[in-house]
């Protein structure tokens, strides 16, 4: 059984050529993997759920505390404006000065709001981008394992490649790889057993047509199984 290759794992390999073509036994057909920005959202429901939760939460915290900041600032400005009005009510020459100061205070308050809105939007954007990258490290391995599952569903148990550096769920992928190698090795052993038995029984098949037909069938089966294990 030297023509059945042993299972190999490519370290830090890429997934490019491993993708099965067409529908795979009930699972959705997979498109070839390319490194594109849109590919960072591999599992939208999983990734967007977490991204939205964290960004909305951060937005709510920032908005609430931002409102508190604005409220406190506006209260201080109103208080100063009231004091100024009180101090300058008997001196018309200070009206311009007072108006100028009040305008400045209100302008500062508006500037504060713009600053906070800017910081909030920046925060949400940066956080979203980071979270998409972070969740991609979970969605990526799941996507890869799903592809191997599709291949297994198709009856093909070829080589598997390792996860990329930085990917999460390494333990889970390790479990999967152990299972895959164990099943593959067992099937390879079975192929060897069947092939050896067929060879041994072939000499006696000349006396029985039924046995010859069965051996022909198992030869075909072994040939097909070898292709599946490549």
């Amino acid at each position, binding site marked *: 059984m030297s023509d059945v290759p042993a299972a190999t794992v490519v370290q830090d390999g890429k997934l490019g050529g491993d993708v099965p073509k067409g529908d795979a036994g009930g699972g959705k057909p997979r498109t070839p993997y390319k490194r594109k920005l849109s590919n960072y959202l591999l599992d939208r429901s999983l990734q967007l759920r977490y991204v939205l939760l964290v960004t909305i*939460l951060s937005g709510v*915290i920032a908005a609430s505390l931002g409102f508190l900041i604005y409220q406190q600032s506006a209260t201080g400005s109103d*208080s100063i404006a009231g004091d100024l009005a009180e101090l300058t009510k008997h001196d018309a020459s200070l009206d311009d000065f007072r108006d100028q100061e009040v305008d400045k205070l209100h302008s500062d308050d508006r500037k504060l709001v713009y600053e906070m809105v800017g910081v909030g939007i920046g925060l949400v954007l940066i956080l979203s981008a980071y979270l998409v990258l972070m969740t991609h490290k979970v969605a990526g391995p799941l996507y890869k394992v*799903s592809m191997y599952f599709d291949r297994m569903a198709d*009856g093909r148990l070829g080589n598997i490649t390792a996860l990329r550096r930085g990917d999460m769920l390494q333990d889970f992928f390790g*479990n999967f790889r152990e299972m895959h190698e164990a099943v593959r090795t067992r099937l390879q052993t079975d192929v060897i057993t069947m092939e050896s038995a067929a060879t041994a*029984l072939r000499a*006696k098949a000349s*006396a029985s047509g039924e*046995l010859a037909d069965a051996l022909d069938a198992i030869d075909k089966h072994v040939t097909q199984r070898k292709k599946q294990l490549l």
Partner: protein
Amino acid sequence: MAGPGYKRSWKNLLLNKRYQLRFTLFMVGISAVLMACLGWWVMRVANEATNVAIARVRGEACKKIPELTETPSTDDTAAVPMKLDDGSGSEGSAQPEQPPTPPAPPPPRAPPTVDGATALKAVANLWCITPASCTPAATEPLVIRARGCDAYVKKKLGDPASVEALRKAMITVVRCEGGQTVSVADAPEAEHHVTVQIDESSMTLTPTVPNDYADTIVQHWECEMRQASDIDAKEHGRHIILWVLIATGVVLSLGLAVYGIKMTHRVAGPLFKVSLYLAKMRDGRFDKVYSLRKGDQLVAFYDHFRTAHAGVVTLERADIDQLKAVIAAAEAAGCGDHEAVAELRKTLARKEKSLE
């Protein structure tokens, strides 16, 4: 299948610690950092607002207690003479008490009849560094043009004579050109004097007590107490904001930690379940695959796994069919005892067992 050993328990919430804690701690960390930074900002602005509010409260001057001054009047209804001690040491003696000798009235002080021009001249002398640096006018702010004017004005306001000159000239505000404006009322009060009249062995204070003196004192202290209360309330408000922020931060972090673990458990749960099946498949057991629980995520991923499982089962069944056919044919051909057939039987038995 819930997997051997798997129980619905809070202890099982952390099925995949690395994944779950990483995501949960990230979420909690982001919230904590946001709360800390913005909370610090809130407190900074709140402190400023509180200080402004407190300054405003302090800026509202309470009605002052009128100064007790000597009076030339001998009218008993207008003044309450206070006899401190007659110095005779005859308390309890049989000698009838002599009515106190009315103190000799002090010479009346001349009323402040400084005319306006003199007062303004005094202001000019005391305040204007050069004649061109300021032009005092009654009831108008005194505008001073000089270098270091703010410091100069501050220094001058510490001089009682300079302040008195302003008051006499009816000037209430001093303003530096291009600088700050200062109210004369903010100048430190001049030292108050009570005239003590010493009459031989007795000392008699003869202050004039206004008719509304008690009411004024009450009003003054009511105002002071109200101000103190207002300031306390504002300080209390500042502390309330701080504690609310801290409490919100703690509750939010704890809530997020619990929610994060529960949320990631919905991902870790299916992964854990699949891992159990993977272990079985590795050991050559391909029994039935059950569905996920309600609310679990990764449903599509789990479907892929089920099809993979079904695919491997199909391979095993195909092997079993082939093995059965060959064994049956070999037995029919009289080769049932052949060593190769015995090997095929063992393989068949193992495969059939794996599908039970």
